[in-house]
């Protein structure tokens, strides 16, 4: 295991600490960490009406922005979080508007 994997593992543990579920939450609440310019995990599945909460573990600001711009966070600083509720089934791509090569997906079913 590389140091980076360990760091990421710790981070994900932190991101889910206190939450009743893992990142693919049974109660409809998923968590995504923003780490080293990646969304982790890059794909989460939630039920209709569920939420995703993103937490920025980077020093750099990032955003969570729908590819169709239907929703967007402001610039998230280190440790800031953003939550969005998804009310219709579908596969939704999002990205970071500051670093557009950071892309990931929310599946609502």
């Amino acid at each position, binding site marked *: 295991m590389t140091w*980076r994997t360990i760091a990421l593992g710790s981070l994900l543990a932190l991101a889910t600490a206190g939450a009743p579920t893992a990142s693919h939450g049974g109660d409809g609440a998923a968590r995504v960490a923003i780490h*080293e*310019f990646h969304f982790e995990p890059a794909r989460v599945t939630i039920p209709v009406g569920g939420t995703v909460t993103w937490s920025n573990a*980077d*020093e*750099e*600001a990032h*955003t969570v922005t729908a*590819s169709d711009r239907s929703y*967007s966070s*402001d*610039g998230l*600083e*280190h440790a800031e979080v953003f939550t969005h509720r998804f009310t219709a089934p579908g596969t939704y*791509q*999002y*990205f970071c*508007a*500051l*670093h*557009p*090569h950071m*892309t990931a997906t929310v599946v609502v079913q």
Partner: protein
Amino acid sequence: MIDRRRFMQCLAWAGTGLVWSAHAGRLSSATLAEAAPAGSDFTFAQISDTHVGFAGDANRNAAGTLADSIAALNALPTPPAFVIHTGDLTHGQKAGAFDTLAETLKAVRTERIVYVPGEHDVFLDGGKEYLARYGRGTLGGGWQSFDYRGVHFVGLVNVLTYKAGVGGALGVDQLDWLKKDLAPLGTSTPVVVFTHVPLWAVYPAWGWTTADGEEAIGMLRRFGSVTVLNGHIHQVLQKIEGNLTFHSARSTAFPQPAPGAAPSPGPMKVEAEQLRRLLGVREVRYTEGAAPLAVVERPLA
């Protein structure tokens, strides 16, 4: 993937307090003392990536280093005719950040400050606030050109095309305008281009490139002296390609790692003493008939 070793061979790293210049494609350097400004027709300065609102661990006092950067501009031996800000005025368009910057930059002793936006200045609203403040006298998304004492200056905007999976680009409209803008100029006209994201492919894996930058570069190749200034990557980096010289500038707020030298391009944490050597501004001297322009780095320490 880019072959980093080959890629690095194309670059020359500038040292603190050195003036770099190139003749017949060969890079040479002189110390500041040897390169007094006497004889320069005029000088201008570049400030970049002020990131007003940044408060991360990489620099807990970005307002202080911005103030010190302004002091460095005001201490230049020849007052700059004007100052070019190459974008990321704000950090994430935080409320009040544009106002704070405007107020802070009033302390710069110069006739005029010209701007191009960085992605931090436009990502929330597509550039609406930026253009309302700085768009006067510019075209399209804020691009512009002007002449100063025989030198043609062009400000290009390459941060308005961002969408999922797609980074900086100039776009067809701006490239068409650039072609028309350059058309009447003779090849002996010195050209200075300033933009936020590097026009050339510094490190595409980190988004440090302009997708259609090569098209603009192609239009510039016929000129005898072209100086391209950019920000975005928060470090001094230079490349020479024929008569074109490319210069990436320091930030006043925080440094970023060398291309590929870290897992990601996030703010680089360094010792307090080293930080001031990695932040600063830049002076550019123009002397008629002495192409290329002399670029003098002015770090804070």
